[in-house]
């Protein structure tokens, strides 16, 4: 019950027009910036095969739009996470949180969860809006035929959000000031985006495109996920054990 109240506080401080409006706008804009899927396949008149193919195409398109959405994800995770951890540490609000009769681990988890819920839900709505607009009449039918392909973008977006959050969490926990944290995480996350222009051969092995499931290397998805989980564990350890809140 106590943690639910904490979550409610956290969400109440996040769900404000100042945050929601730019978040939604940038999510919807950047979801159009996918790498683009080419190629064509002829499936003849087989209706079932055609709908399977359409579902797969739709799923790929959704996963692919995550690579564009990554820009908004990077920006907002860098800003939001550093405001919720480093900035609150600076202004003294975190001291109030820590003085409550709950463990620090719970506070960390709730802060993470609240931000994750917000960014993830808005990103998901942006992706599914894009997918729905590609096939407005058939979308529900396709979802019924092959839910795996149509729900695939959820996994890609969850992994992408996890990665950006891990990097921002790490820097927020380790930096002295909030703007240090957001700057470091912005540099780190955006520099991955430049790989596509300079070394196009390597782009499928590095973050924004590893999340385009079905096109990227499965091992690189695994490594990236492992890396983000490790980074979150490390920042959780630092927050719980090492951080001096004064």
């Amino acid at each position, binding site marked *: 019950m106590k943690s639910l109240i904490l979550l409610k506080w956290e969400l109440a401080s996040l769900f404000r027009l100042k945050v929601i409006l730019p978040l939604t706008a940038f999510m919807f804009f950047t979801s159009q910036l996918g790498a683009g899927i080419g190629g064509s396949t002829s499936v003849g008149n087989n209706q079932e095969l055609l709908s399977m193919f359409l579902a797969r195409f739709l799923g790929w398109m959704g996963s692919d739009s995550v690579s564009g959405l990554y820009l908004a994800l990077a920006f907002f995770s860098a800003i939001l996470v550093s405001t919720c951890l480093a900035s609150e540490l600076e202004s003294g609000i975190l001291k109030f949180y820590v003085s409550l009769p709950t463990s620090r681990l719970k506070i960390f988890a709730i802060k993470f969860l609240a931000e994750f819920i917000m960014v993830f839900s808005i990103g998901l709505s942006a992706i599914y809006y894009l997918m729905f607009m590609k096939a407005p009449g058939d979308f529900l039918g396709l979802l019924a035929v092959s839910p795996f392909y149509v729900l695939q973008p959820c996994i890609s977006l969850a992994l992408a959000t996890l990665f950006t959050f891990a990097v921002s969490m*790490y*820097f927020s*926990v*380790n*930096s*002295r000031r909030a703007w240090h944290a957001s700057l*470091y995480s912005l*540099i*780190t996350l955006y*520099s*991955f985006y*430049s*790989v596509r222009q*300079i*070394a*196009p*051969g*390597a782009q499928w*092995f*590095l973050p924004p495109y590893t999340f385009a499931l079905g096109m990227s290397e499965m091992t690189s998805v695994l490594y990236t996920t492992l890396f983000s989980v490790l980074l979150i564990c*490390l920042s959780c350890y*630092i927050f719980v054990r*090492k*951080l*001096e809140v004064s």
Partner: protein
Amino acid sequence: MEGRTAKHFKELTFFFIFLTLFLKPSYSYSQPGWLKEGDYAVYRFKHAYACNRSLVWGDSGWELMDLGEGYYRWEILKLEGNLATLKVTLSTGNGTKTVEVVINTETMDLVEDGKVWGKAWLWIDMTTLPAASNVNTAERNITLVASWLNETVKNPTVSRVHSMSKEGNLPLIKTGLGLIDLVVTVSANTNVTSLKLGNVIHGPVEGGIHLFWDYEAQCGLLVSGLYVDDILTQKFGVYYFEEMAKVGEVSYWMYLEDTNVDIGISKEGTDIVVLLKIYYPYILLGILAALLIITLVRSWRRTVV
């Protein structure tokens, strides 16, 4: 009065501009501008195969024998008009052989006593031969090799200038001088389907063995590929080479080892931009790892003190 003179001046200047346009020296033939006496290029190959003519094996197959590894080199001895005298050397395990041939630098015809006896596309004219940039390939009505295993290789497709890494997601072309990204690819199909190389049977290749080779985009010099020409086939009797490409590379029989033609890369200075492009992901990951570690170390030191 002044206005009128100004008008006359204007007319006069226009007249002179048109005059200079028409008097611009026009060449009756178009050979590459970089071509001069003393230019040379050396190509390295692994195994050259000569034809053992007495043993024709199968219907469309040929039996070839190994000559060993070596190099193929040409040098311009004399350049008169559009005729160049080339000193061509082929060095294999069986020894070194040198011939002098006369080549038409415009049409790449090999000429002897006023007769054309073959073709050698050692370079291409970058102003005329590549396809237009809005199409990927264009079929050209030219002969590539006049005689290769009893057939004429002609009507090749010539690509536009394309980037190996950006458009094809392929590794850059390796030469003895450095790496090359922008190339023009010439390719043609043949009717030869199977070969016997020593004891190994190669093929049958469906649709015939596909010959293709790449020219770099600055001068149009041959850099790499499955290359044969009539000097090799008719003067040296070499028809085939062993594949040199490793896994993941575009296949090639020979590559440019050295040249004094200025193709933008040289042995002395490697292009730093190309190096950065190749190692960019590693450099990036290194910098980011350093950033992660530095922030961690700083925060730990702060909490301890």
